């Protein structure tokens, strides 16, 4: 089996999950496709550096993909204005328009990009807050405040926001 075939045999079973991981981080399918394409090339070129054998491939590949996605996000966020203090609080008017029930992804994708990114990196990719700060090139305090704010918004959207709603989850 050639190197290319070995790589593809390991990559292919992960492809669907990787695509959705990129989609979750970047917020749309087109960018996710581009990021996954770039990440596969990066991974293939570094394939000889993979340590831990085939069993380590999924986590290694996902790390490369997440790095690729956060690089894209960093560039993208440079053109998004710095958040204003009021952005750190719940967007009460927005929440009125949101469905009271719905699945988790629907709730997460409806967040502003800055909030969605930290939520996905934290809860889907299990990244530490310090890692998220470094990956997105933002202060640790900003990661904390965005997560805090995002969780408050999501709590209501997911019906986990109060004892009277908890039964509906």
């Amino acid at each position: 089996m050639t190197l290319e075939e070995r790589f593809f045999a390991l990559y292919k079973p992960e492809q669907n999950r990787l695509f959705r991981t990129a989609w979750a981080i970047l917020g749309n399918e087109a960018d996710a496709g581009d990021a996954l394409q770039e990440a596969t090339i990066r991974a293939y070129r570094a394939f000889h550096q993979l340590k831990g054998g085939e069993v380590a491939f999924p986590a290694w590949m996902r790390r490369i993909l997440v790095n690729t996605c956060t690089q894209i996000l960093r560039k993208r966020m440079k053109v998004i204005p710095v958040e204003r203090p009021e952005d750190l609080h719940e967007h009460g008017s927005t929440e009125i328009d949101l469905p009271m029930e719905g699945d988790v992804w629907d709730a997460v994708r409806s967040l502003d990009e800055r909030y969605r990114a930290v939520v996905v990196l934290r809860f889907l990719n299990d990244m530490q807050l310090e890692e998220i700060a470094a990956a997105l090139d933002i202060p640790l305090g900003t990661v904390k405040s965005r997560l805090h704010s995002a969780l408050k918004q999501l709590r209501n959207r997911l019906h986990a926001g109060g004892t009277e709603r908890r039964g509906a989850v």
Partner: protein
Amino acid sequence: MQCEQIQRDLVAYQAGSLSPQERAAIEAHLSTCEACAEEAALMKETSELLTKGLKDWVDQGVCPPDIAERIELNLREASGRPWWQRWPALVGVVATVAAVFLVAVATNPDIAHKVASVPLLGAIAAQLASPELDFQVDPQKPVSAALFKPTRTVDLNVTAVQEDATLTVVRVSTDEKLLRVQYSVAGEGLVLGKDELSLIPRLTSPDGPVALQSYTADQKDDEIRFVAYFDAVPAGASLTLTVPSLELRDGGTRGPWQVAFTN
């Protein structure tokens, strides 16, 4: 500590990102403050819901077939595996064809252009005669001789001279979608350089500029040969080609050139 500050730190607390002292302070507060303890429980519940929900969503994912196909193709191209390893059966045929083409293509540009229009052989010839510069306006949809099937060709040999350097428009061909202009610049000491953007030709018709799709350039001694693909224009149109300046080996430049012709 104030409740507001405690609640703001709950995310970091639950992520295990606090120092032992900060952690102890929060735990002490939570043991005495019912409101913050309730908030912490809700945060934890939301976090767990998010983790499970997002991971389930990812596990149920399907990569769209067009993206999967693009990735596979891209990977094969990037693998750099030589074509003779991918299609070993072609080795004999290709080796023979290559030997003949290599001589023909290297010595005669007309043969190179004609061969380049032939399916399969065109691709092989293009590989053998890989140009020194290859500029594509849209790299995702490269335009090359292999895709070009001319239905009309006009031999021109019109020239424009700047000092001792001569631009010659050799031939213009048209297919349904593209117009190909083959031209060369000859002059002592001319060098091609590496900057694709500085050599982009401009073509204008009576209706305005004609969009460039790609161009290639190759140097042979003191002659630089170009093949440019533009959007198709109707037969018989009056066209003007402008070719940017070229550098000289010993410094200085020649050009730009401008020449008018009818396709």
